[in-house]
């Protein structure tokens, strides 16, 4: 590994540690709320149907998988095929985001509101917003990656590896969110 690669890997590692700490803090909060609540979901609130979050999970998993495939193809020097995979990852990521918007409308329609549903609503909306906010950066970096591949930048593989790590990270955070705040 040359020094430039090492620098990039380190920087991405530190960035992911930072991201993990941010979301870890949110999950710590969730654990506290859950364990101190008398009942969950609180009285008068329905559990959220798992259909939509589950579909979102599949979409984001598939997106991560295409990202991984894209990097493999790039390593073999196959730029055009890699481009297809990155495009797919990008498309699936965008579909995930649309799904999240839909989720917020759906929550509203089932009577879970941001301001009147107490901590339950706060968690559902707040946490998914913060995740979605990070997704925007992920999607922007995928868009950037598309153009970088198109122009065949010199250290394109390095960029791809970094974007891929960040993208997987966002996927993992969503899955943890799905398992803890929707399934549990």
């Amino acid at each position, binding site marked *: 590994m040359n*020094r430039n690669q090492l620098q990039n890997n380190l*920087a*991405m590692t530190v960035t992911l540690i930072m*991201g993990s700490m941010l979301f870890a803090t949110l999950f710590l909060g969730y654990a*506290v*709320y859950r364990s101190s609540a008398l009942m969950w979901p609180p009285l008068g609130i329905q559990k959220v149907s798992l259909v939509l979050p589950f579909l979102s999970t599949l979409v984001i998993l598939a997106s991560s998988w295409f990202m991984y495939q894209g990097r493999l193809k790039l390593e073999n020097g196959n730029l055009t095929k890699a481009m297809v995979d990155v495009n797919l990852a990008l498309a699936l990521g965008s579909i995930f985001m649309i799904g999240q918007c839909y989720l917020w409308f759906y929550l509203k329609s089932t009577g879970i509101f941001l301001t009147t549903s*107490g901590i339950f609503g706060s968690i559902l*909306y707040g946490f998914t917003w913060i995740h979605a906010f990070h997704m925007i950066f992920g999607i922007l970096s995928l868009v950037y990656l598309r153009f970088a591949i198109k122009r065949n930048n010199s250290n394109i593989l390095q*960029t791809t590896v970094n974007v891929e790590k960040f993208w997987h990270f966002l996927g993992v955070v969503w899955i943890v969110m799905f398992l803890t705040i929707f399934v549990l």
Partner: protein
Amino acid sequence: MSGGYNEIHPEPTTFWSTYIISFDHKVIAKQFLWYGIFFLGLGGIMALLIRWTLAYPGVPVPVLGSLLFSDSGGVVPPDTYSMLFTMHGTIMIFYAITPILIGAFGNYCIPLQIGARDMAFPMLNMLSFWFAFLSGLVLIISLCLPLGAAAGGWTSYPTLSTLIGSPGAGQTLWCVAIFLFGVSSTMGAVNYVTTVITLRAPGMGYFDMPLTIWGLWLTAILNAIFVPVLGAGVLLLILDRVMGTTFFLAGASATSGSGDPVLFQHVFWIFGHPEVYILILPAWGIVSDLLSFFSRKPAFGAKATALAMTSVSILSTLVYGHHMFTTQMSPLLTQSFMTLTMTISIPSAIFFANWLGTIWKGSIRFDSPMLFSLGVVFVFGLGGLTGLHLGTVTTDLYLHDTYFVVGHFHYTMAASVLLGGFAGIYFWFPKMFGKMMNETMAKIHFWGTMIPLNGIFFGMLMVGYGGMHRRIYNPFVYESLQRLIPINSMITTSAILMGAFQIVFVINFLWSLKNGAKAVSNPWNVGTLEWTIPSPPVHHNYDEIPVVKCGPHELGNPNLKNGRDFQYQTEELVEA
């Protein structure tokens, strides 16, 4: 993200690219220095207003009063008083000490002392400063709002910091500013960690790095891990304030599930305790180096000092509960946090003993950087000892939220870090600006700071022990505290004195910039890498990347034959 190859970047040509959006770590360091000194002044004026109110409650503030508080006849009004101590704490910690110690010295020293041409990611470095700038701007805007700035203390505990406790945009902007500042700090952290790991000059092992770099590096690691925790906390607080969520608002738990105000305290201190070490570690590093340089002796147990600093950093992540003994924690938890807190004394005692070992029988030169370093040894000793009283549950239950705590953290943080910062400024000023600072003025500044400083902070310990609570507008409405008025006016007099002597520093700084004697490349006769190149260094620092052959503290070796009592890190070690 593309990294630097430690290659020579072309020199910028326009004013804009040289001084404003500069990628050069030396320029960014100076930007942070000016930024920090500006906020130090602002925070200092706030401190004087707080002190005036505590010593002479109800008496109009001279000069400033008629300008700032004309509605109340020059007296600081109660709500303004809360804003003052809130913004004083926030400004000093995030906008004065952090930029000077971490922003300025970190940026200046890391590449120079490890023999690199710049940081690993110069552009990220530039962004880091401008995020800090934006954050400072937001904070200053919040001072000018009709309902005033944040007033819930620098710790911003809910319910004080929710809409119930502080309506108005001040607290929201406070959160935004802190979040932006966190973004800036973490950008810096990514850079520092990566730079130290990848850009050390050939031959420089980790234990060949000056201890300054050790301090800054550990600080950067703690920053990267714990600033995001605060980030999450203020993000939720912003959601509570702006969007109407209830993360930190208690409610009826059966019907809506209840938010939890105390959760914020946990989140704040999980960040906050490491944060206090984030601030002190660079100062420890600088002092460890300077004590050796000016005693003309190798640093005693330098390796042990580095490892002790590392253990403190690790332990500092496990003790945050000692800030919350009074929040009805279970005794099992308080006892555990107390034990862990006490454990920190062990590594702290190790490097403290090493400091004493370093100056023991040294040929001490009492130049201004050394005076300030010795000052740190003294005040940090006192501050550390008072920590033990607070770390012990039984005594803390009485001392918590009194001025004893305020005295404690001012000794450790304000005094030690401030003096350490001054030591660093006097030491590196010649390298930064190519001019020497005036030594007489520096010595006047030292004694004019050191003596009143102890009057202030020891006075705080005393009134705290006497039962005076912090953050109260007029404590003397309680009859039992009226006997403390004389000590309080002593504290205030000392504070005004200390403030006045800072003017000497500012004059010296500005005067030396223009008229100081020209600095030679190595005015202090020390061997670390930055002193092998001209003052100030050229744009790319090193024409040739240096090769390191010995440690940073090779001083006073009797076998040195070349008429010097020190050797450069680029020279083969002369066997003792």
